[in-house]
């Protein structure tokens, strides 16, 4: 984004559509992962030093099956989109098919993610996570 050019909410409606949505999601999931890992490191450090602190509370939330649904989304999307970007950087002649690579990425993402959610929810309600 150019300096001093505030796009605001309309920036999200930018008509770059498919690859732009992936770009935005890549950044959002990156910040999600950093928030998750940063707080998890701090919480685990607190847990290691003193048992039964706020760290334990946070890590119990982190290990619950419903929280894993969001974590898995961030990790899996960021991984697959990162690999897509690396492949496009190594073979730039594929750039004219960038929209198709996004479709391919979602085609890989959706089955893996749905299967993971299915297992998480089944185990979550079944008792053994």
């Amino acid at each position: 984004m150019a300096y001093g050019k505030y796009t605001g909410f309309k920036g999200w409606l930018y008509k770059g559509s498919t690859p732009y949505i992936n770009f935005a999601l890549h950044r959002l999931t990156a910040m999600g992962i950093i928030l998750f890992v940063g707080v998890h490191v701090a919480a685990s450090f607190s847990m290691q030093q003193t048992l039964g602190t706020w760290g334990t509370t946070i890590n119990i939330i982190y290990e619950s099956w419903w929280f894993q649904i969001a974590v898995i989304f961030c990790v899996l999307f960021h991984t697959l989109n990162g690999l897509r970007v690396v492949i496009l950087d190594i073979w730039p002649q594929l750039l004219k098919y960038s929209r198709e690579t996004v479709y391919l990425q979602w085609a890989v993402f959706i089955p893996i993610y749905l299967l993971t959610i299915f297992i998480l929810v089944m185990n979550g309600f079944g008792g053994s996570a």
Partner: protein
Amino acid sequence: MRARYVPQRGINLDYLMWLFTRISGVGIVVLALIGLGAAMYMGARLQMDLPTVLRWTFFPNPNHVVNSNVPDVTLGWANAFWQIMQFLIIVFAFTHAANGLRMIVEDYVGHTFWQPFIRALFALLLIGMVIVGIYVVIGSAY
């Protein structure tokens, strides 16, 4: 409105970090796949549940899986090989993350008076996280 700052061509911080982001990204995927394979080999069928497998995948530290049902957590789990793996994933992941955050912030902040301070803040965060990580790697149970 001022002219956009364009860095010099050739080897500079942005080029090196661009390259490092790609290499470390693929590196983290490879490390995670090795960790996932080892976790499944060592006990995913009976002694470990899914969260434990994931904890070993992303940070192969014995203390990270201490609440699993693996009978002897030190057997095949705590040795120099896995310590090197932990160290690599810490350095790759935290540097990848600090640089990514720097890029996001600089996209909105631009080249201002504050840029060196922002970079210093992220460098300090990175050094702090790596120190905490190395403390955990070296201080873990054998």
